């Protein structure tokens, strides 16, 4: 009796509410539109983020390029002095600029016949440069296009070459001691006959010219150790992805990096990597995901009742009707990681030990989220079937600085290259990906670093 009453009541309630009619749909829709602005706003935001990221990368790239172009370690650029036509003559005859390894420069004295003032000026310039060089201890190299480069070692060679090789070209020139103690070369004088003996006087110790350059000969500058401004690297990463409620999953990634030297100890490290992150949530689901998850139902109840009320057996329907029971949730994401880190080398001269910190931005090339759930077999309520449902996204969002990077590294030198082991951790500041899951990772990078150039 009670069962019949319950069934009547149940059937009636189902029928009433399945046929329920409400005329306030318009009002409801206008209310919904206040909180559901569709997807119009999302697209422009995505473009804003993409544009910002592209601009940032562009600026970094241009900055690196310009910085690399302007900065040449160990080399000081000196504004070239005005060269006289005789300097050009000497430069062309001696061709010192053809030897780019020449260090320590003086200008070859070239004196016009009958004019002594330029000689004095020139010698003063030579002496002052010699003094400056000694004081500074730095080699001075003039630009080859406007000045002649002569080493102290090569200078004697040049002097000898006057007599030995260039007698033809300088046969009309004579070299005389200058009043200032320098060297005076009188040239292009048809009345003066030059010969080998005169020219060879310039090589004798008694001659002022060798003594003038004697100050330079013992100065052998040790070439400055050239360090590359930018080091490039490729790396492979093995790491574990973690999130609250997820069992840790081992993952792999790879990419390349560029280390830009800012100071002796500090470097700006950036690059691009492709990283895979997989998460497995057993018997739980991330909070942010649960708001969006909608599992299909396998219930016949309510659906058949209004259509065929007489034939519909409510009890049977209740038996087979089922809300799928959540089993587990998998997330698999292939992402592009763009880190911007600062690296501090403890002692770059002696070892390759460093620490590094910064932020990562990026996006996901492919995201796959799989929900696995059980539901009763419709043929038998006691049997369970498992089914999964996967949703995929590509380039759905761009995150900007949402991941904090910490790492330290130690390297083994392989010639000019380095093999580096770099344990790291990535800590999320917010949810990532289209499902906004907050996850991080920790592992080791195996990195191979090599210099890009020695400018």
């Amino acid at each position, binding site marked *: 009796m009670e069962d019949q009453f319950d069934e009547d009541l149940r059937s009636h309630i189902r029928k009433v509410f399945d046929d329920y009619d409400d005329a306030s749909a318009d009002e409801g829709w206008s209310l919904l539109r206040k909180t*559901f602005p569709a997807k119009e706003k999302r697209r422009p935001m995505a473009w804003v983020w993409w544009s910002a990221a592209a601009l940032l990368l562009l600026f970094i790239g241009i900055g690196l390029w310009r910085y690399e172009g302007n900065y040449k370690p160990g080399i000081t650029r000196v504004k070239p002095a005005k060269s006289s036509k005789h300097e050009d003559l000497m430069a062309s005859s001696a061709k010192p600029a053809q030897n780019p390894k020449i260090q320590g420069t003086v200008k070859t004295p070239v004196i016009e016949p009958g004019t002594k003032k330029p000689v004095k000026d020139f010698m003063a310039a030579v002496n002052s440069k010699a003094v400056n060089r000694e004081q500074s201890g730095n080699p001075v190299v003039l630009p080859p296009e406007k000045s002649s480069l002569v080493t102290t070692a090569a200078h004697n060679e040049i002097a000898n070459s006057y007599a030995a090789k260039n007698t033809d070209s300088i046969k009309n020139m004579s070299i005389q001691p200058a009043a200032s103690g320098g060297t005076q070369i009188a040239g292009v004088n048809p009345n003066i006959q030059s010969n080998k003996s005169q020219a060879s006087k310039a090589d004798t110790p008694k001659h002022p010219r060798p003594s003038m350059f004697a100050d330079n000969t013992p100065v052998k500058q040790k070439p400055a150790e050239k360090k590359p401004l930018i080091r490039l690297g490729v790396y492979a990463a093995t790491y574990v992805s973690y999130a609250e409620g997820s069992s840790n999953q081992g993952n792999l990634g790879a990419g390349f990096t560029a280390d830009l030297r800012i100071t002796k100890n500090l470097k700006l490290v950036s690059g691009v990597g492709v990283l895979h992150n997989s998460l497995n949530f057993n018997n739980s689901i991330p909070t942010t995901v649960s708001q969006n998850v909608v599992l299909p139902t396998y219930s016949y109840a309510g659906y058949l009742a209004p259509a065929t009320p007489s034939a519909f057996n409510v009890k049977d329907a209740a038996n087979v009707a089922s809300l799928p029971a959540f089993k587990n949730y998998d997330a698999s994401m292939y992402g592009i990681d763009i880190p911007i880190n600062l690296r501090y080398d403890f002692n770059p001269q002696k070892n390759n030990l460093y620490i590094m910190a910064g932020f990562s931005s990026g996006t996901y090339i492919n995201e796959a989220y799989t929900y696995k759930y059980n539901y009763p077999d419709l043929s038998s309520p006691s049997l369970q079937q498992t089914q999964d449902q996967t949703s995929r996204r590509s380039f759905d969002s761009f995150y900007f600085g949402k991941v904090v990077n910490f790492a330290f590294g130690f390297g083994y030198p392989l010639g000019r290259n380095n093999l580096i082991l770099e344990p790291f951790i990535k800590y999320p500041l917010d949810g990532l990906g289209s499902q906004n899951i907050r996850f991080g990772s920790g592992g080791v990078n195996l990195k191979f670093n090599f210099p890009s150039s020695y400018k």
Partner: protein
Amino acid sequence: MHQTRSIAEEEIISQCRKGSLKYQEALYKHFYSYAMGISLRYSLNRDDALEVVNDGFIKVFNAIHNFNSDKPFKAWLRTIMVNTAIDRRRKDLKFQLNVELDHTVPAINATAVETLGAQDILMLMKNLPSIQAAIFNLYEIDGYNHDEIAGILGIPVSSSRVYLSRAKEKLRSLLRSETIRHGRSI
């Protein structure tokens, strides 16, 4: 046994998958009454029910690409509405786990069961503790079993059975009462 979905409904769902606002509105208005009929049974009042409906439809629009076209859309929508309503009242339901019916109940003649309108039924439900009303709705009307209800509400299966039994007993008591309540509006 499945009801054939109309071509118009398939077209609406297909366009909603593409994010068409126009078709989302059409879907909303087409199923609004059905969704409201579900959410009213789980909500405290009409405003609450409307919020549940709207929250549920937002989930529908966001997740419609996950909807399996081979299954009935109404059943999928029902699941979403029920889950949304339960989620909204979960704290309230847990708080009322130990609350017993302690106030006078209006009663309706048993012979009048078939004449009960939606408002009458809702009024009847209001006389049940929230947890009992929710379990009655889940089990008797929406077809969930006790295991599922226990999982949804975070209560033991045995409690689900007990609360359902009490709810049905209370409804019988209400409907068999000699007194007939005349005011039927909420």
